[in-house]
């Protein structure tokens, strides 16, 4: 997949994956809590992007 042809959603997923990994490692102290916090951040990143996309779609109509 050529990065210059990414869709916005693909970019969001990759962004969330990298940022959540760093947040998980740096914000928590044990591996288990790091993993859980990373998953939590990833879910919030992706979830908020989807919700805001729908909000903007509805506002634009």
């Amino acid at each position, binding site marked *: 997949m*050529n*990065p*210059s*042809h*990414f869709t*916005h959603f693909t*970019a969001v997923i*990759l*962004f969330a*994956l*990298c*940022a959540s*990994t*760093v*947040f998980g*490692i*740096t914000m928590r*102290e*044990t591996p288990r809590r790091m993993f859980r916090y990373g998953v939590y951040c990833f879910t919030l990143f992706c979830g908020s992007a989807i919700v805001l996309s729908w909000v903007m779609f509805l506002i634009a109509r």
Partner: protein
Amino acid sequence: MATTPNRNTAAGSRPASGPTTQQGFVYLPLIAGWLVPGAGHFLLRKWYRGALLAVSILGMFALGIAMQGKLYSSAKDILDLLGLAGDLGNGLVYFASRALGLGADSEQVTVADWGSRFIVVAGMLNVIAAIDAHNLRTGRKIS
């Protein structure tokens, strides 16, 4: 600058053992972590964490370059200045990319705008990782 043993943990009262009580330049993990993503954690023998941080930060930077993102090189206005500050967080990777002529001079396509954000955020994440290495070194973060 000599290292002060960690006084906030039980390990601080014991003789030198482990990275938080080593003697040496206390800011080395911070500086190394800024210059090379993950290097601060490698110095503290946190191999897996360092590897994950390096892959995440370098991957994000590489994706930004591949998406034809812009590398900020001057501060013509406040937004450029903020972008330059974020890019500088990438350390040596930023300077090497500038030297190799990577990155676009201006954003030509929509994806390039996201690419520029990837590069800036990679820099900021690298600063967070370097500070985490410093906190591990000083004992502010226990493990």
